[in-house]
């Protein structure tokens, strides 16, 4: 191919136009969308949960635009369910231009990311992580819109009292069963401590049963719980063991008056799908959404449209709200400069939100301490919110219908 003077001049002109336009385009892109580094465990042992959190990304930008907020440019980082990887991915995302971080479901991984965010002066908005120390370090760039473990337990007892009062069913005895891992043991210790602050709780814990998280068979555990004759079963479990426990309850023909869960498993889609009508009845005390709030209804509709087979849950709600906080702060700050963003997040006051409570606002430690948890009950293969009253869309039903009569 020949390259004559005319072609040379055309190429020179094109290069000139490009070089003139490129910096402008770059600046314009920076002010157009905030670059959010979204860190989630999208592979490894927590892959299912990380992928579930990520689902909400697809529906967030259209919702933000409807709210008059700027769209976000999401930069995804996979923590591989590993603390060290979480730290290095946070470093890498910042190096690649992330102006704000969101993440990371797991307390250990979030703690590592928080250290990086603080050192580099980049704001971190935590979507899900309950370990209290994260917001007790005096960090200036770390914000959490998720309840701490003591808040979760405190609300669980408060909501239980509301449920017992509404149904007139007050179990006198209970068995506490928990999975014997870090989460289960921490919840068991917290349960004992926080319960003392609620003297009105009607039941006495007659037996505490810890079980192996990798258990293949929970018949012994259920037999032991049944032998106590307790009226309520209180659980901290995960999905697989929740299914195993329910199967054993049915096979051993034991239906407690109430099955009260303080962890995941009992309200998850797979639990409802696998067990059908046998899944009805348990009440879970979890960070949830207020079905009466307008934004919750919009999120619910958008989620249903994008993923008709997947119910809106904690993972979606709190990841969405973390992105909402980022977009709101970016709009108010009018800049992607990290300090300006952090200052804007500190003064967040979002009333139009999804989770129960007065809204999203942070205390001096960067924690939203006004958040409320909910009590949700499985009914007819669906989930209804039964407490607290202002964030409920149904009345609780106890005692549970015997498994053999379903």
């Amino acid at each position, binding site marked *: 191919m020949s390259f004559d003077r005319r072609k040379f001049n055309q190429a020179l002109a094109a290069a000139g136009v490009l070089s003139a336009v490129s910096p402008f385009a770059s600046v314009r892109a920076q002010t157009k969308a905030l670059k959010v580094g979204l860190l989630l465990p999208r592979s490894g042992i927590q892959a299912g949960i990380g992928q579930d959190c990520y689902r909400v990304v697809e529906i967030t930008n259209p919702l933000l635009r409807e709210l008059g907020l700027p769209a976000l440019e999401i930069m995804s980082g996979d923590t591989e369910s590993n603390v060290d990887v979480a730290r290095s991915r946070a470093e890498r995302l910042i190096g690649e231009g992330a102006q704000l971080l969101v993440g990371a479901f797991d307390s250990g991984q979030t703690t590592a990311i928080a250290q990086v965010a603080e050192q580099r002066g980049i704001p971190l908005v935590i979507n899900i992580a309950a370990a209290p120390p994260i917001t007790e370090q005096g960090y200036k760039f770390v914000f959490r819109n998720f309840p701490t473990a003591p808040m979760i337990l405190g609300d669980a007892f408060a909501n239980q009292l509301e449920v017992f009062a509404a149904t007139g069913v007050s179990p006198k005895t209970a068995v506490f069963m928990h999975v014997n891992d870090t989460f289960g043991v921490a919840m068991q210790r917290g349960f004992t401590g926080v319960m003392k602050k609620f003297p009105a709780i009607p039941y006495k814990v007659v037996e505490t*049963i810890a079980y192996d998280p*990798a258990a*293949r068979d929970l018949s*012994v555990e259920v037999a*032991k719980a049944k032998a106590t004759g307790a009226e309520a079963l209180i659980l901290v479990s995960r999905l697989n063991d929740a*299914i*195993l426990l329910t199967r054993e309850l049915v*096979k051993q023909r034991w239906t407690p008056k109430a099955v009260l869960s303080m962890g995941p498993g009992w309200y998850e889609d797979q639990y409802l799908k*696998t067990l059908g009508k046998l899944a009805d009845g348990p009440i879970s005390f979890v960070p949830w959404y207020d079905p009466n709030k307008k934004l919750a209804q919009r999120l619910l509709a958008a989620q249903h449209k994008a993923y008709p087979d997947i119910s809106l849950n904690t993972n979606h709600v709190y990841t969405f709200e973390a992105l909402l906080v980022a977009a709101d702060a970016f709009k108010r700050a009018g800049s992607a400069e990290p300090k300006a963003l952090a200052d804007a997040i500190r003064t967040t006051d979002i009333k139009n939100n999804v989770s129960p409570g007065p809204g999203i606002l942070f205390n001096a430690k960067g924690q939203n301490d006004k958040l409320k948890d909910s009590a949700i009950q499985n009914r007819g293969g669906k989930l209804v919110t039964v407490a607290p009253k202002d964030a409920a869309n149904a009345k609780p039903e106890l005692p549970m219908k015997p498994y053999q009569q379903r």
Partner: protein
Amino acid sequence: MPVEIYLNVAASGLLTGLVYGLMALGLSVIFGVVRVVNFAHGEMMTLAMYLTLLLFSALKLDPLVLLVPIAAVLFVFGYLLQAGLINPFINRPEHSQFMLLVAIGLILVNAQLIAFGPDAQGIRTAYSFDSYQLGPLIVDASKVYAAGAALVVAAALFAFFRFTLRGKSIRACADNYQGALVVGLNVKHLYALTFGIGAACVGAAGAMLMAVTDVTPTIGPSYTLLAFVIVITGGLGSMGGALLGGLLIGLTEALGGVLFTPSAKSMFAFGLLVLVLLFRPQGILGRKTA
């Protein structure tokens, strides 16, 4: 605690132990003849469990019916594995055999993770939630059927080794390798056949276990460990020992869980193993080697 609780738990432990015994029987048969320790045993069982899951979803056939084709598929898999991969390692050092089988196990786990994902999956039969009440005793129907099938399969295996010419040939290989070669037995073929039979046992056990519990790709290694505990307790290479070991481990775990704490029930199985190793190193029904 009421005595019926102990009876219920013991019955459940014995029934589960029978299925575990069948799984361990495969390991014992392979070691008894081929003298290779199958470190991919549990992973092969999860393969059988996933095959059951797939066939159940496609054909809606009961796992007790599916155990026949699944055992056949695992037989072919085991035969080819021994003939193609393991036979060249028969005369190599034990650590080479160990590494080979661990590698096969890892490949199986990761292939299952890619194919089926990390979540637990199960099947729901017509009797999944049924139980039989006999006085104070409540027995899980799925476990009764699975244990019954385990007994039938084990009895068929005993009959095969005792009464058929092929079974006797395999036993001859196990008793005297040189002698078997001298009388003209095709030892490599018989080894592959034995590995296939051991794999078929695992296939049958996997199909039955799907009626009782869920499957995830990562449970394979724990089943391998369980099979080892059972065969070492019962006696490595002894078929009766494997079944007895399964029953004892099932019972020990169940009663240990109810008498002490359920989260430590595996500890009691290992405690029994330590006792056996101390006082009868060859296992309860094992033969002393020279």
